[in-house]
């Protein structure tokens, strides 16, 4: 028998397309991907219906925040509110997705098979990140659509007005920007989960670190603010304060934007500061991920 040699072009970016195709094929076939998106849609639906139920409670004096809750149930707030939930709860899901994406290759020991079937480690990791980005964006889009659909339902059930006067070009432009801002604030957490899964050679360290940082940082930040002095300024260089600064641009009533930090911080970081800081974190997590993945031996 004469062996057949299949020819494939090789260049710095050759093969990336087909490798991404293989990765998306795996993700599409995986139940967990669908479950995570279903959880996101479920949470958005649940929160909206809870708000609807609360809005219908007849409190003596009307309740000081009832007006805001009813505003949230209106159609104009449906998209920004969905994005606000995506920025907080969606981040946790993105962390799980990112850590699983690379960590399970170690858990299932498929990393060896995958690497000897990939043109390079750089391309393998790039494939993972591109696919992850595509999946996060798709999840966010589904979340927004679900949020708007649920908003229509709650509007109908709650007997609120179906006035589409808000749907102007500037409104959609603002939502478009907020969509990308939300993506921007999710990425540092997702990349941290990705990095720690590489460092720990398993999904769990990535999930634990990512979610741990997401939830514990706000508590630690609070203590730092209470300490005062220069320590109170440290949170401005951490993740959550900067994430909050960006998500507060969603123009939602206080307490609903998931980003209002006026009570927690003496002075929230400026928007450019927040963008730069989060960008640096994302780049550092990304660079470290590539560095460790390229440098370390695949054993065990």
């Amino acid at each position, binding site marked *: 028998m004469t062996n057949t040699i299949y020819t494939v072009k090789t260049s710095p970016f050759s093969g990336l397309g087909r*490798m991404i195709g293989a990765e998306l094929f795996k993700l599409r076939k995986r139940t967990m991907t669908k479950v995570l998106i279903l959880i996101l849609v479920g949470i958005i639906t649940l929160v909206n219906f809870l708000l609807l139920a609360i809005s219908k409670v007849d409190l003596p004096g009307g309740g000081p925040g009832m007006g805001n809750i009813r505003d949230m149930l209106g159609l104009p707030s449906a998209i920004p509110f969905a994005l606000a939930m995506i920025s907080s709860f969606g981040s946790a899901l993105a962390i799980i997705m990112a850590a699983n994406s690379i960590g399970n290759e170690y858990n299932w020991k498929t990393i060896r098979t995958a690497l000897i079937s990939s043109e390079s480690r750089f391309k393998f990791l790039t494939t993972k990140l591109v696919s992850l980005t595509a999946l996060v964006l798709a999840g966010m889009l589904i979340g927004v659509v679900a949020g708007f659909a649920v908003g229509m339902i709650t509007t109908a059930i709650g007997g609120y007005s179906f006035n589409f006067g808000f749907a102007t070009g500037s409104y959609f432009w603002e939502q478009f920007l907020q969509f990308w801002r939300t993506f921007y604030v999710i990425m540092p957490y997702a990349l941290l989960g990705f990095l720690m899964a590489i460092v720990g050679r398993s999904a769990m360290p990535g999930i634990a670190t990512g979610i741990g940082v997401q939830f514990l940082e706000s508590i630690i930040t609070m203590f730092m603010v209470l300490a005062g002095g220069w320590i109170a300024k440290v949170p401005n260089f951490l993740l959550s304060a900067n994430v909050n600064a960006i998500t507060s641009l969603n123009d939602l009533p206080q307490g609903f934007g998931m980003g209002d930090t006026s009570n927690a911080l003496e002075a929230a970081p400026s928007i450019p500061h927040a963008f730069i800081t989060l960008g640096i974190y994302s780049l550092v997590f990304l660079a470290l991920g590539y560095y460790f993945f390229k440098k370390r031996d695949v054993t065990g």
Partner: protein
Amino acid sequence: MTTATIMENQSESEARGEVVLRVIGLSKRFGALDAVKGISLELRRGEVFGFLGPNGAGKSTTVGMILGLITPTAGSIELFGVKQNGNRWAALRRIGAIVEEPAFYPYLSGWDNLEVLTRSIGGIPKSKITEVLERVNLLDRAKDQYGHYSMGMKQRLGIASTLLRDPELIILDEPTNGLDPAGTKEIRDLIPRLAHESRAVMLCSHLLHEVEMVCQNVAIIKQGTIIANAPIKDLLSHGNRLQIRVENMEQAASILGALPWVKSVKREGEFLMIDVPPDRGASVNHALAENGLFASELINSASSLESVFLQLTGGASGD
């Protein structure tokens, strides 16, 4: 014979024997541990090469270094005549390997797992998936989820995956692990066939009997060092012994021990075990008869790879 066939045969005979893997002075240190210490190996096209060693001897580390999963501390690796530095995709495309154990995505079917590989490697037609699954008798279970496969089926899928890219070098780590006797025989029959198809096969196995049956050359690694690297028939001839039953054992031992070509004489129960070259049976008998001793039994006890392995590795379990 057609011109095409003649040319094919010529190219095959030229291809046979070409060195596909050459490892020179390969070392790997993990912290304070020298996992592999300056080993050298050579594997030729058409050859089935057995790579043996006890647990933790450095087999998987060596395979990992060959495949670029582990960076060597020192030494060089040549694949298909090209010294490997940095990216070795050009060589990896010509290699099919199972490292340590077959590993696939548990939520995908056997077919889908192979499809992921064909998409990732590129340039492999989908018909190849059917072909390799048929070859390992897994086509009828191809749509079942990998997570539900038995160990034997996982092994078959592993072998199928190595054949996907029509490799010129195949590295198999314990390929019959978990297979039933019929499956073991199938794989044992398949391995020499693969080598006859002008491929080189590196077989890491602890089933020494299996290695003995299919390999032409063997390297035994212990504590990171190659302690034997030779054609299997040479290795086996080294441990050749004559087993003799004779009445006066002390006298016989003393007579035989004095002969220059006798390496050792040892009493084991009712027998004398004599370490001699395999063609010296008649000379031993003659020497005893000259001294009035007559052997009632004289058995040429050819050593097995297992006994050679245990002797060389000091009785460590083979893996």
